[in-house]
């Protein structure tokens, strides 16, 4: 009986997805008599296109109702009219009105109207909602979220020991010792040239980002610097985090130039260990997550510009490359990565919810070993550039940039790459995390921005986009960046955006989270612990998997709809009408915009978020068990936190299908 229980619980994530799909499939079968096509009157829906939205933002249509969309073109540019799941892209000339239809929507739910003709920088996010009533899927999504929350709470009530959704957290696979592929991977990671080999293609890509960002087409989706970076790279990094930890940091060229200069070597280990740098000691007070976290938040304050204007992207990356070189020439090790790079905050934070980790093979070997080449540097590898500070003793993935110097330098062959269940280290980290407010705030910022970006970029609320965009309709490269100088009213719009973004991530949501953790503490009856240090910060670590999965959903949305933009940019990076390029010197590979199954998007995104929800609740339980030491107290506090986590999932459901 016990064995069967284990098997059942191990399939919990799969069961969640299946339950959700079954529910929503039933919802497709409408239980209300639908109006037949011949009987109904054709309804004309007036729609106005403008830069960069539609009016009305939300349109309600009944299932089976015949509609014609009467689209009034913009006064200023041409647009295109496209609806998810339909096979037309209608050109809407400016100043003209075009009728599209009659058409019928058979499946209840939510579809998007999207613009199919590049009309300016915010074109990829020019979206309106069509809600096909009765919107059963919305209710089944809400029910599914509640179900997943409830089932996970019931699951943790049973007191699973050291498990995550049924999978033991003790199990791990040493990837470098797996039959067949293991030795090949090991040889690769121990080869000194691997670093350069992996980074070189990204040097090429970054150079093209700079060239296109400054001199290329000022419209984002026609430009490599925006089209490839903010659609393809952004998505790839999120999925890399889940499956391969901080692998982006292995490949990243930003600090590489500085590091090669300081080492005076690209490939080998310089015999004399005098770095070409000032080799200054980095101030301890600055050596934490805050710099990186605030950098990430800072980016979000200008994100509507960053992800649509090539010049802004080019400028950001030029600045980061320069900072990377300067920091390395002053401090030698990866302090640029640790403290400046905005991506470090989230890649490091969420790496703790990854399957992948760089760890020692046998801790006791490390304990007995005196010299510790991984930490000090040895003939075969440099001292850990990421200042982890001791690779052999790694118990969390936050600061390990996966440069594999330790794998190269250890003479006992005791450093390796492990594959294990998500969240193995979270409980241990969280319990020791009492004053790591920087980490907690990365969790809050990332979690909220993931949901917020889904709402802003793929939602239909034009006002939000307008505030962030500051009302400027032009694309920007080096030759016209003056258009970005905002007027007073534009600045006021931006202030609203900034207050919302910063307010929610820095203050509002953490405050709500704090309230919930106090309630959780009360429910657990843990009177002798301080909420702020002992419960609030540790419990925030549940957002490591949760936030990651929110971003997995958001970026999947991005890539499924807009995959054609990055792909076509490899053939035409500058947006100058090239059919081939130095990267893809073959003609005919330029893809046209063609969203992939967008009508199924909510059904794809919600299960991802629900897996995140289950992981969050289970992580909270694991943390609570370690915190309180008592299974009952842990369960009670988890149940309270589950309310908050499930609530956020309900909110996400509303965004994507409500």
């Amino acid at each position, binding site marked *: 009986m016990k064995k069967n229980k284990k098997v059942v619980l191990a399939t919990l994530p799969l069961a969640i997805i299946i339950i959700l799909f079954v529910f929503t499939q039933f919802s497709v079968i409408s239980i209300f008599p639908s109006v037949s096509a011949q009987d109904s009157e054709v309804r004309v829906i007036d729609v106005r296109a403008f830069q960069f939205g539609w009016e009305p933002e939300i349109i309600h249509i009944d299932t089976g109702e015949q509609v014609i969309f009467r689209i009034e073109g913009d006064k200023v540019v041409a647009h295109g009219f496209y609806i998810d799941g339909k096979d037309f892209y209608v050109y809407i000339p400016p100043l003209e009105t075009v009728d599209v239809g009659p058409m019928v929507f058979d499946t209840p739910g939510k579809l998007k109207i999207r613009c199919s003709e590049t009309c300016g920088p915010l074109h990829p996010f020019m979206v309106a909602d069509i809600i096909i009533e009765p919107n059963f899927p919305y209710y089944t999504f809400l029910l599914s979220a509640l179900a997943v929350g409830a089932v996970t709470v019931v699951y943790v009530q049973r007191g699973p020991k050291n498990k995550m959704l049924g999978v033991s957290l003790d199990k791990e696979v040493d990837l470098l010792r797996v039959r067949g592929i293991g030795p090949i991977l090991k040889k690769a990671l121990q080869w000194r040239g691997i670093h350069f080999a992996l980074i070189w293609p990204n040097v090429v890509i970054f150079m093209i980002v700079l060239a296109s960002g400054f001199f290329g087409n000022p419209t984002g989706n026609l430009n490599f610097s925006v089209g490839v970076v903010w659609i393809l790279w952004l998505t790839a990094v999120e999925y890399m985090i889940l499956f391969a930890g901080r692998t982006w940091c292995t490949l990243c060229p930003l600090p590489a130039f500085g590091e090669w200069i300081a080492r005076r070597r690209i490939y080998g280990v310089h015999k004399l*260990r005098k770095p070409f740098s000032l080799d200054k000691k980095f101030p301890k007070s600055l050596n934490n997550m805050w710099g990186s976290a605030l950098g990430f938040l800072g980016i979000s304050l200008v994100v509507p510009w960053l992800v649509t204007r090539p010049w802004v992207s080019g400028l950001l990356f030029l600045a980061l490359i320069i900072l990377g070189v300067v920091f390395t020439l002053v401090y030698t090790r990866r302090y640029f990565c640790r403290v400046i790079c905005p991506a470090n905050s989230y890649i490091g934070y969420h790496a703790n919810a990854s399957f992948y980790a760089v760890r020692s093979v046998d801790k006791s070997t490390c304990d007995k070993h005196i010299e510790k080449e991984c930490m*000090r540097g040895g003939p075969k590898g440099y001292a850990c550039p990421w200042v982890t500070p001791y690779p052999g003793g790694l118990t969390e993935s936050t600061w390990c940039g996966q440069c594999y110097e330790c794998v190269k330098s*250890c003479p006992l062959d005791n450093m390796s790459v492990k594959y294990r269940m998500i969240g193995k280290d979270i409980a241990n980290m969280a319990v020791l995390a009492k004053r790591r407010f920087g980490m907690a705030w990365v969790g809050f910022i990332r979690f909220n921005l993931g949901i917020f970006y889904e709402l802003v970029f793929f939602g239909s609320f034009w006002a939000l986009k307008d505030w962030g965009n500051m009302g400027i309709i032009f694309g920007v490269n080096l030759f016209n960046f003056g258009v970005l100088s905002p007027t007073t009213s534009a600045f006021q719009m931006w202030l609203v955006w900034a207050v919302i973004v910063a307010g929610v991530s820095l203050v509002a949501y953490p405050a709500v989270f704090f309230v919930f953790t106090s309630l959780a503490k009360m429910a657990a009856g843990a009177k002798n612990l301080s909420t702020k240090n002992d419960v609030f910060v540790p419990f925030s670590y549940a957002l490591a998997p949760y936030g990651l999965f929110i971003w997995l959903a958001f970026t999947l949305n991005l890539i499924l709809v807009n995959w054609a933009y990055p792909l076509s940019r490899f053939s035409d990076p500058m947006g100058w009408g090239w059919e081939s390029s130095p990267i893809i010197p073959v003609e005919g590979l330029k893809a046209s915009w063609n969203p992939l199954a967008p009508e199924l998007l909510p059904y794809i995104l919600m299960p991802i978020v629900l897996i995140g929800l289950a992981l969050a609740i289970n992580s909270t339980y694991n943390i609570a068990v370690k915190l309180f030491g008592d299974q009952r107290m842990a369960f009670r506090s988890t149940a309270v936190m589950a309310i908050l986590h499930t609530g956020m999932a309900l909110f996400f459901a509303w965004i994507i299908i409500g």
Partner: protein
Amino acid sequence: MSLIDSTLLQSSREELKKYYWSKLGKGSDVTKDSKLKPFSEMTDYVYKAWKAGLDKKSETHYAGALLFDFILQCTGRRFTSDVVEANAITEIGRKMADHMWNQLDASNGDFSAYKSLVSETADSLLETKKVKK
């Protein structure tokens, strides 16, 4: 320059015998040079590091690691699974490097004195008697 303390010499000799020279076999390619290669590489490094004004503590540690790395190389290995071996070799390497460094400090980098110290130490390790002039 004063020679390395005889206890350290003795233990160094033993460790080298145990972990290195015994593994080299007795073929004709086992020359004095090949027996001393790790040691000479290490002493070369100590001089360079001293000359460059680097930090004594980290560089003497590194010198020990260097000695060990060369022993591994010269016995055809990339790794060892024997922590005791690793510890023993790096320790004697560090201690010898430490002594060399101190001598360099004392003599203010007298290269010829350093060379003769190295050569004397090598002979002592190999227990080859040098004919004194």
